[in-house]
């Protein structure tokens, strides 16, 4: 579905991504974890067409020439940006409708009502708040709205940038449950997270990004069990744990 080969990108002269190669297959959740400044967001923005490719290839749905953000959304790849980024001054329902415009315009069979009903079924709270201004929602509700807005475009690949940032643990759990549900409904998800444990917990495969390079990859359980990952991202000191067992 998504294949990246030797991708380089950055801002001006600053090279953030250094020869990244990765792939996402249909129907899986792939988690990309890494610390602040590792280049996670840059990678997603480059895939979404917001940042120019500096070198290497991105092949999305077997098309190599998707250049503009518009073309990429049309082709079926949506990004749920970090920090929600809802249309704060518009109503919840207008936010959702806007998310679906791309499909609404190009697909004759697209039914706005069917899609809205689907979103409201996944996120019942959005239906309760449908005529409220999006900026007045709580953080968790805004995250749900941002996810719902992306889903309105009926994407085949959904990319999520740190959906758990600044949310209460209970809400985070709910959001991750929804991510799993999306996968079960046949969607493909590329999840970027700092919350490594949760992200790898629901993922099929994972990549670890550090200063613009992929340093580790593999099935999610293997990464969770990997001592380097545990030390760096799960905050568990392996040696200390072993020592305490001896006593």
């Amino acid at each position, binding site marked *: 579905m998504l294949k990246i080969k030797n991708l380089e990108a950055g801002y001006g002269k600053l090279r953030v991504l250094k020869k990244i190669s990765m792939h996402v297959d249909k129907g899986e959740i792939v988690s990309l974890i890494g610390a602040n400044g590792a280049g996670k967001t840059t990678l997603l923005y480059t895939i979404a067409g917001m940042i120019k490719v500096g070198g290497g290839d991105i092949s999305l749905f077997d098309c190599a020439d998707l250049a503009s953000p*518009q073309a990429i959304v*049309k082709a079926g790849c949506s990004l749920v*940006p970090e920090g929600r980024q809802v*249309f*704060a001054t518009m109503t919840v329902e*207008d936010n959702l409708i*806007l998310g679906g415009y791309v499909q609404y315009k190009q697909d004759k069979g697209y039914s706005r009502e069917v899609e809205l009903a689907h979103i409201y079924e996944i996120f019942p709270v959005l239906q309760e708040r449908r005529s409220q201004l999006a900026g007045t929602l709580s953080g968790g509700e805004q995250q749900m709205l941002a996810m719902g*807005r992306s889903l309105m475009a009926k994407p085949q690949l959904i990319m999520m940038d740190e959906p758990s940032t600044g949310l209460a643990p209970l809400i985070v759990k709910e959001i991750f449950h929804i991510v799993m549900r999306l996968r079960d409904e046949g969607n493909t998800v590329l999840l970027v997270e700092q919350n490594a444990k949760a992200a790898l917990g629901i993922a099929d495969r994972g990549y670890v990004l550090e200063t613009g390079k992929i340093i580790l990859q593999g099935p999610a359980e293997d990464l969770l069990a990997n001592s380097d990952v545990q030390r760096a991202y799960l905050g568990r000191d392996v040696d200390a744990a072993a020592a305490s067992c001896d006593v």
Partner: protein
Amino acid sequence: MPLELFSQYLFAGITYGIIYAIVAIGFNIIYNTTGIINFAQGEFVMLGGMISISLNSLMPLPLAIVCAVFITMLFGGLLEIVFIRWLESPSVLRMIIITIGLSIVIREVALHIWGDGVRALPYFTGNVVSSVQILGASISPQVLWALAVCSIMVLMLSLFFKFTSLGREMQACASNRLAATLCGINARNMVTFSFMLSAAIGAVAGCVVSPITSTQYDMGTGLAIKGFTVAVLGGLGNSMAAVAAGLLLGIIEAFSVGVGFPLVFQDAIAISILLVILFVRPHGLFGNKEAAGLKEF
């Protein structure tokens, strides 16, 4: 105050008020998509009037007006493409300064093309002395034209923003440009559309009011200040509120003369209202405080 006099002042106020409202709506349209105030808005009104006057010597009046509106609309789009489009993530302040600069340049170019004489389009129907009696006041038919055209324009605009996909997309760009782009909306095109739209409605206003108020190369500045006052008074971004606020300001101005306030203070009234509103109710009379709090500017 006798009824005839009262309604005479009232209609004078309404006439000016509706012009202010149209300029304010022009501000609102661009503000709604870009979040900036286009201070060259008054110049669009002047250009609409001037171009239609020039064209009217070559072709019949309705055709001249249609062409003038069309030319001004293209000019508005061109202005955006040449001066604004290529800016990489410009700040609000920078865009405002650019539009102020543009308004000065347009005014000076207009001075060179059309000179500093006062010009006017002929009356759409009747002439200077023809009038209609309403509530004892003598109203020029042109005033009724202005009212009708502007009311229809306002109605169509609000329908446009509420119910068309282009209108909603333009709103989305104003609210959050990054998110709009991620939804597959071409934000840059939306900005160009908004400049074209607001240039066009400015030009329509310039044509309808030209017979009443005349057109001069520097009429834009005054209109821009009044229009801005009205836009802020009503609540930035809200077109219906702009109409109400425009009528309010127009009527206040008209009656202030009626009760013997010196004419020279007329502009001071608008500025004072602007200041008071900015201090006391920055989200405007009819603005939504909640929505205003969610905006950057």
